């Protein structure tokens, strides 16, 4: 757990005092990612660097797991905190292996253990150790360097990580990939992470909590969904953008709003039976599934009126289907693309997993807006 108490930093500059951090109070629970978000110059980096004491606070306290860091030796403190900077900062004179082994060596691991750790970490981010251990940073692409920068910070397994715009220097496509990789690692590692970003999309994607900064002050510290749904003031609302409701779509997966019990029918089922069950449940469509339980089409209640035979003969092809893991932004995008009010969902094996409808999506968005007055709505 990281706790900041009344943390303040003023810089004396030729143009007078600059207050880079103004009585910042916040707490990051163990195992969570907290994003420090805000426009350039609002004090995010300053706040971060006070935690590993690259910048000495003017006043206030920093506690890591309850321990006041000003009581600790700077060098010891830093060796126990992983640090990733935007410029990546791999040492050009060292091989990738040597770069990763820097902190393990500093804290006195034996070389064999450090080296096998380096290989293991490279593997973890999909870089083949046999190819990469002996290379120099200049022989790697930007995205590969970025990955090495992250695993170098993880090398000695520090409980706390500080990351200053760690994925800022790479192209958007690689950034998404590395973000996903990192989230996957974090799910297993459960580090306590302070993460600086100026990108609201990144913040919403990566953060358990987001702290929005303006001129050294925290304007709002909340979960991504609450920040998007209930911005505390005009500044926050403006910063997160007019499309903040659409951004919230990324926070919910299809699984959470899909109706798993929506009507379905085997191709070989008789029309009469399906008409019967649709009539009794009041539903107007049924998804048609094949022998492997894959969704292959749909039938409407209207067309089954007065008909007979097998369902397969009445099935229309499905316009599209979406994985249940997809976020609602992808779902809505598919709906708009195919001009449909509903989509069938599939699980990891492509089997039918329910139906997600436009009203269900809007209801999900409304649910958080309900917030305090949910009962009234």
């Amino acid at each position, binding site marked *: 757990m990281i706790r900041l108490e009344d943390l303040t930093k003023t810089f004396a500059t030729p143009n007078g005092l600059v207050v880079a951090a103004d009585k910042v109070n916040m707490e990051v629970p163990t195992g969570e990612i907290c994003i420090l978000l805000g426009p350039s110059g609002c004090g995010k980096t300053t706040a971060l660097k006070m935690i590993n004491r690259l910048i000495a606070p003017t006043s206030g306290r920093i506690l890591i797991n309850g321990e006041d860091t000003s009581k600790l030796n700077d060098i010891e403190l*830093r*060796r126990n905190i992983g*640090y990733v900077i935007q*410029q990546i*900062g791999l*040492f050009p*004179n060292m091989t990738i292996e040597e770069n990763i082994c*820097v902190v393990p060596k*500093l804290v006195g691991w034996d070389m064999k253990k450090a080296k096998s750790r380096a290989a293991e970490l490279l593997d973890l981010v999909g870089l083949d150790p046999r190819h990469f251990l002996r290379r120099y940073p*200049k022989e790697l692409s930007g995205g590969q360097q970025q990955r090495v920068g992250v695993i170098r910070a993880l090398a000695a397994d520090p409980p706390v990580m500080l990351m200053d715009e760690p994925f800022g220097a790479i192209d958007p496509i690689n950034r998404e990939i590395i973000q996903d990789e990192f989230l996957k690692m974090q799910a297993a590692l459960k580090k306590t992470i302070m993460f600086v970003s100026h990108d609201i999309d990144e913040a919403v994607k990566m953060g358990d909590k987001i702290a929005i900064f303006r001129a050294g002050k925290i304007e709002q510290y909340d979960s991504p969904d609450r920040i998007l749904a209930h911005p505390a003031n005009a500044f926050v609302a403006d910063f997160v953008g007019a499309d903040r409701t659409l951004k919230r779509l990324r926070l919910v997966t299809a699984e959470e709003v899909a109706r798993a019990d929506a009507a379905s029918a085997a191709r070989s089922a008789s029309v009469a039976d399906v008409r019967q069950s649709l009539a009794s449940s009041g539903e107007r469509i049924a998804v048609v599934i094949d022998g492997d339980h894959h969704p292959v089409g749909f039938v409407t209640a209207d067309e089954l009126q007065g008909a007979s035979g097998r369902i397969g003969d009445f099935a229309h092809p499905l316009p599209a289907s979406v994985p249940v893991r997809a976020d609602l932004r992808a779902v809505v995008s598919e709906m708009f693309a195919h001009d449909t009010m509903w989509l069938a969902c599939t699980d990891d094996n492509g089997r039918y997993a329910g139906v997600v409808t436009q009203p269900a999506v809007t209801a999900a968005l409304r649910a958080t807006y309900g917030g305090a007055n949910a009962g009234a709505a």
Partner: protein
Amino acid sequence: MRHAIAQSIGLGRAAMLAVGLLAGLWVANSGLLDQIMVYWDDIAFLSRQHMVLVAASGGAAILVGVPVGIWLSRPSAERYAETVMQVFNIGTTIPTLAVIALSMTILGIGFPPAFFGLFVASLLPIVRNTYAGLLAVPSHLKEAATGMGMTPIQILWQVELPNALYVIFSGIRTALAINVGTTPLAFLIGGGGLGELIFTGIDLMDTGMLLAGAVPTAMLAVLVDFLMGQAQLRLIPKGVNPLR
């Protein structure tokens, strides 16, 4: 780009070798070789003296220049670093011959003033390149190193010096070139060396004697530069060596 540099260095070497070979052929054919070989004993003795001067003054300049450059680049020396560098820069505008003459007025004649004059002449490029090379190490590397928990000494040895090494080496190479080129002047203040054959040869209008001093001096200069070039190519780690 890197290839172009390496290639042009390769070309320069080849051209130098060719010129050397032609000069050698000419010297051998014109009968000058015999005139030079008359002085073989002098050449052997004076070359040794010459090389001792180069090695001692150059070595001392490295041993003093690199630490001074390091010291000037430390944040604690920031206030005087620029002033010190200015003084050094003004120092280089003084012709080496004047430096040697001045050191004679203080230290008398013989080895000490020659050593001292050459030492001073070689010092500046080493100090300047060490200082500039260390300052040019990107600050984010130092920040990353500090943030990872390296001590200032560890940062100096493991990050700053390796990354400045190429520039420092270039300074040493320049310094030694200046040193080797200036060493013949040592004779003028009784420091000995191959200058004795050159200057006496000039005085006596004895071409053989003059060449007996000039040819080994030239060969030594080429050899030293070649060795420094090789060292720069091979000793500097691949990750920070623009030649590799």
